[in-house]
């Protein structure tokens, strides 16, 4: 079920799926409420999954107040309040995982547990995080997932007429929101704050991540207080839950079980 809550910037789109203990899902660089198999896959393991769309993504209004990472983190803080996610365990991916860590560092009660899929937020000169935008749209798809068709529900259009125009605008707004999070380098000092994250964390990476090299898992693990597991999903790219929804759902169920 998809419904809308209100927050300071307008409409907040929330996808709710399944019954059971509440688990949050925070998307990364792409977002397709109602059309992403990971959410029902996770719900099928006995959870009530709540997946809000961040500002600018899908049908959540863009927020004109957001100009830097500080504003993004405050936005997420308000969003988990509005979505009823405070204190719940959370699966967060890519840029969403970076935001979740930032929020957990300053608001300890925000999440009870985190499963982070290829978080951004650190930078190493010898393994630079890839720029997902200095390429064509097709090139970007190939960077995000091992199987470029895995994100079809975000990139491809099935609508026509005015709905196609709306879908094009929505995708552009979402990609702009991602750009605002990662441009020019997605490193905003998280390394200096990560030690404050007190909840248990599980790290998941795709073996073929073209955006954040899987070796970054070590950098995150070295700075986090309570890492419960580190997993590499074979044959998956950056957005592991799009390439292999079952694998990530199983890892999350085990972590939250």
């Amino acid at each position, binding site marked *: 079920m998809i419904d809308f809550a209100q927050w300071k910037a307008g409409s907040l789109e929330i996808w709710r799926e399944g019954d059971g203990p509440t688990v949050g899902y925070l998307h990364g660089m792409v977002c397709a409420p109602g059309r992403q198999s990971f959410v029902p896959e996770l719900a099928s393991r006995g959870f009530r999954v709540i997946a809000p769309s961040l500002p600018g993504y899908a049908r959540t209004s863009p927020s004109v107040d957001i100009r830097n990472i500080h504003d993004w983190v405050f936005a997420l803080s308000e969003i988990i309040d509005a979505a009823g996610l405070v204190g719940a365990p959370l699966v967060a991916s890519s840029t969403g995982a970076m935001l979740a860590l930032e929020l957990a560092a300053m608001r300890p009660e925000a999440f009870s547990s985190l499963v982070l899929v290829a978080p951004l937020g650190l930078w190493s000169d010898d393994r630079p995080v890839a720029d997902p935008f200095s390429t064509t749209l097709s090139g970007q798809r190939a960077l995000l997932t091992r199987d470029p068709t895995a994100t079809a529900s975000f990139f491809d259009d099935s609508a026509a007429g005015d709905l196609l125009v709306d879908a094009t605008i929505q995708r552009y707004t979402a990609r702009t929101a991602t*750009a605002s999070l990662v441009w020019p380098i997605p490193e905003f000092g998280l390394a200096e704050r990560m030690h404050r994250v007190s909840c248990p964390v599980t790290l998941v990476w795709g073996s073929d991540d073209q955006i954040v090299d899987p070796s970054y898992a070590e950098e995150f693990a070295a700075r986090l207080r309570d890492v419960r597991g580190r997993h590499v999903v074979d044959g998956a790219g950056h957005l592991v839950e799009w390439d292999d929804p079952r694998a990530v759902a199983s890892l999350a169920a085990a972590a939250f079980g």
Partner: protein
Amino acid sequence: MKTIWFHLMPYPELPDDFTSEHRSVWVDIDPGLFDARVGHRMYNEYIDELEFAASVGFDGVGINEHHSNAYGLMPSPNLIAASLARTCPDAALVVLGDSVALYNPPIRVAEEFAMLDCISGGRLVAGFPVGTPMDTLYAYGNNPATLRERYHEGIELILKAWTADDVFSFNGKYSKLRYVNCWPRPVQQPHPPIWIPGGGSIDTWQWCARAGYSYLYLSYFGYKAALKTMQGFWKCVEDAGRPANPFQAGFAQFFGVADSEAEAIELYREPAEYFFNRCLHVYPGFADPPGYKTLATVRNGAEGMVERAAREASERAQQTTKKAERKAAQRSFSAASHMSFEQMVEKGYVIVGNPDQVAEKTIEMAKQLRIGHVMSLCHFGNMSRDLAMHNTELMATKVLPQIRHLWDDEWQDRWWPTPLPVADRMTPSPRPSVSR
């Protein structure tokens, strides 16, 4: 009609295999291709050409700002303008401009433009481009999501700095200054004329129309392809309830003048092919990052896509997307890559011919687009200084007299600088001889 001699200052010695061996002329071009001795010669020759153009009767000299590229080597147009302000005593200094969002704080633009206006005695045209994505987002790391807001805020600060009677505080979203006090102040009051160079952004048309700024369409793809854009701008002027004064608009155009059309084709083929094939060889992945375009422009493009899709109802949606992507890449800077000179002439990218032919086509262009300012590119690509000056001289002596009259009997150019009277203007004084 006013004609401005506009220089891009391209790097003239890109190798013959540049397009096959290098992916882009911009952003990640191989630094090893730059030879500083060529740079030394190039800058001096290019300044010679600008000075020559001013001396033979062009109304203005024009320059602009780009970064990390071989297409246009003026990271700081103000440096060149400062030199020209002293050596070109009568021409307008058309700086197109300073990319406002790249100056932090943008008060720097207010100050340097005011310096130029003072040095030149009030001959500055203040151009405020957003800047290309390659310059602003990739080379200078601006965030595409906030670039335009930062740009507009910067212009607001500059205008207030030029016109405020008192020291003031500016509490912007991106610039926070406790004390704003622009010294020097511009000669022209309330401020130099403002020209906005742009691509096809609808919001820019509306803004220029509303605020009364002069809009310049800097396409290098010829006046024939520019018609739709300029019609869009003039519609916005009409909607804003303003008169369609042609001097509120300008257009950039390549010219190649010779004694005959055949000679012109022979003379200008190589530099044109160099420019269009090498200098515009931009990797498409740099041309269209999300957030750079306004949503109105994206919507306009999407609606066009829908119309096309309706015409081609049998086409699958995925094919439509790929087509739009291809089309977007074609509209980007690399559009003319591998095009022959004959095609460039046929499409109007370059107006070539004898002086009468060039004058006739230029008037046709100006009337079709309804423009009062022509940014004329008489140097392009790897053109030699001698050929650039030959082209410039023919243009000044045999073409300009035929086109200059256009619009003068009907419209006043309210977007042209208003300098101090000649008698009040300083010129470089001869250096006193010093006995050693």
